[in-house]
């Protein structure tokens, strides 16, 4: 079980390293070596990361799904996924592909500007961007449902860009 898990993670790492090295600029070159952390050593033993960029996608919480980031943010009026989330979403897709019983709900949100039902549409468009990528990356359709709260459930109150960018998001909720 653990062996299979490792192989899948390794495959994911290879796929992401390929796309990651070309799409995702390293935000912080000094973060190299973050993977070498006591808690994660067992998982990464024997894992050759040569030629895999900075290796950031293997962090201390590698083994636990609950530690994966569950919120994805979007630019103004956009439902396109930022490149920085490629690796995170691959890991969620892997979780779903590895465990056919796992189910998630994608909760889309918009900032408060404009009309409420149209914002429901914008939130859903964001959920669907995430859903499509997860399906391409190996999740199956019956594992993913979507809901949009539009502007009804802001993560941050306030009518400024600071609040708006926290509110334009998709939250990934594991249902079981």
């Amino acid at each position, binding site marked *: 079980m653990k062996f299979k898990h490792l192989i899948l993670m390794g495959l994911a790492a290879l796929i992401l390293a390929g796309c990651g090295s070309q799409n995702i600029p390293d935000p912080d070159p000094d973060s190299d070596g973050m993977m070498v952390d006591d808690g994660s050593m067992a998982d990464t033993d024997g894992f050759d990361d040569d030629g895999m960029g900075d290796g950031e996608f293997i962090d201390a919480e590698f083994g636990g799904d609950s530690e994966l980031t569950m919120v994805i943010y979007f630019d103004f009026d956009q439902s396109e996924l930022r490149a920085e989330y490629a690796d995170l979403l691959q890991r969620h897709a892997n979780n779903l592909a590895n465990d056919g019983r796992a189910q998630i709900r994608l909760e889309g949100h918009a900032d408060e500007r404009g*009309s409420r*039902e149209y914002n429901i549409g914008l939130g859903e468009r964001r959920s669907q961007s995430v859903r499509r990528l997860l399906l391409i990356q190996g999740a199956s359709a019956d594992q993913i449902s979507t809901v949009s709260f539009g502007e009804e*459930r802001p993560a941050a109150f306030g*009518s400024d860009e600071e609040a708006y960018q926290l509110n334009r998001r998709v939250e990934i909720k594991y249902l079981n």
Partner: protein
Amino acid sequence: MKDLLVRWLVVFALLVALTGTADAQLEFEITDFVGKRTPVAIVPFGFEGETPAAPFDIDDVIAADLNRSGRFRPIPETDMLQKPIASVDVDFDDWSILGVEAVVIGKITQTGANAFSVQFQAFDVFKREQLVGYRMPASRGTMRQVAHRAADMIYEKLTGIPGVFGTKVAYVSAEGSETARNFALIVSDMDGENQFTIMESTDPIMSPAWSPDSRQLAYVSFENGVSTIFVQTLRTGNRIKVSSRAGINGAPSFSPDGRKLVLTLGGVDGNLDIHILDLGTRELTRLTTNRAIDTEGTWSPDGQTIFFTSDRSGGPQVYRINVNGGSPERVTFEGSYNARPRLSPDGSKLALVTLDRGNYRVGVFDLEDQELLVLSVGQQDESPSFAPNSDSLIYATRQGRNGVLEMVSADGLVRQRLGSGRGDIREPVWSPFPRY
């Protein structure tokens, strides 16, 4: 299944009974007025009955209604040179001196333990003639309604426009922090009295819509984490789940005959399209298929056309489509953002949300001359709803962090703010005319 529904309805009725108490009231304040306010006199009504004083100040309510319209200025009682109760005692010269254009007199006569007769007469001071006179039965419980009805009749005689003082407003309030919020669907008289909570939830409630007979509200609830459209009967609290399909169930709006809802469904793939649901047969008809967001459908008063928001051309704009299908036709072209259309009850105008130099504002688009008039002055104004007389609109705006309601006359000359004193209030919907 049916058993479950019945049990559920009982639970819900109890919930309504517990929560359906009067809340803090909306407070009115005229914030903006351009133009002349006609001075009128509402003379204190006389009373004949078992008690020395009348059980209800009918004249106060009539005066407050006319004042709130923004078109009239009831003079203070202390300025009155006479306080006639019978028409024979009205001295038009006295009222001419005060510059008053209309005088209203009346009396309440007790006819039983909780039975009264309310009569009023309105006079034109210049023409020295009666404009309207009417007598209505009343009980202590219906006095307020009777007063609104009198105000509606007086307003119509003076302006030629039916009054809307007897109407109601439904709106949504949200209280609490980002992580713990309480949403409530509230119905109130237009003067802020008789406020009742129709439904409460820790999950969002959205998009209330009146049935044409004012007996029901359709709305979207996110209880259980997914969107569901309910139709709830106000008197009983019973509600029916009318749409809970996978994905989005949103933006319900009744047909003029009350038999159908136009609504938005997103499905598993999240392609929002306009659908019509027959509430009797449960038959569902898909009207649009475009991959863009199609939502916020609303019926034309003649029942033949659905107006809706679509971003098929890029940004959101208003389109219209025949209720029987066909290809949609674009309605708005001016500006980059025109959304959430609502027809005026006379069918001549569209209220909408428009992006006006960086601000989301309420506008009225004249369907005939194709002119857009921006009516609000905030930064985040939304959810306009026409009064049933087409003469004014109610919408939501911001006051600091909270939503408040504003009313504006369709010509933009009179504006009033309605604060609730609690929570963030939004999505006001003006009821149809009451059935007297």
